[in-house]
């Protein structure tokens, strides 16, 4: 049973427009959420995170929104750039005393068209 779901395998947007990537989760015990970006032949890299006590976190062109009641988070990229083309994974960390292994979604491939 997937606890973290990314239902859109791919997304294509025009350069300069907004990209919105979505993620849903089922486990109420997650207390931290993260987004990672992955280019081909490289490991994923950390992008942005949000605590469950917040509903928004912003870092430059990237904003993550969290709706706890809907168990939904989204990543907004504004404006989108061709270099943003990559696979994006959302991840969640369970509330725990110390074992902090992340659970990842299946990823969304973003293509930004010039």
């Amino acid at each position, binding site marked *: 049973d997937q606890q973290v779901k*990314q239902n859109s395998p791919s997304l294509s947007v025009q350069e300069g427009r907004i990209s919105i990537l979505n993620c849903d989760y089922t486990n109420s015990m997650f207390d931290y959420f*993260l987004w990672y970006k992955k280019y081909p032949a*490289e490991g994923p890299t950390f992008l942005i995170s949000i605590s469950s006590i917040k509903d928004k976190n912003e870092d430059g062109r990237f904003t993550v929104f969290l709706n706890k009641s809907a168990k939904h988070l989204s990543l907004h990229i504004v404006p989108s750039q061709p270099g943003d083309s990559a696979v994006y994974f959302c*991840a969640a960390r369970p509330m725990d005393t110390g074992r902090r292994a992340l659970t990842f979604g299946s990823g969304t491939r973003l293509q930004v068209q010039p």
Partner: protein
Amino acid sequence: DAGITQSPRHKVTETGTPVTLRCHQTENHRYMYWYRQDPGHGLRLIHYSYGVKDTDKGEVSDGYSVSRSKTEDFLLTLESATSSQTSVYFCAISRGTQANYGYTFGSGTRLTVV
């Protein structure tokens, strides 16, 4: 950034043979993880470690074992490789309890079992 190296980068092996993948870090981080990436499944946790000789199973641990005899090295062994273990394997380290640090991933090992 923490240096994290995976070896080998690519490997082709025959069904039934044992295979060991190595993850090496140059900093003294306690937490290390092994994930596999497969299309449609994202990143799935195989095993993780919270220190020397302290390891635990993840969601897809069947057919895999790990060892951590030194802080800097985390080894993943496929005792008898099967075609279903063809995948890209990523090692990750975590900077401890700071949730927003997330993970730092290695560049991955592409394993093909024929």
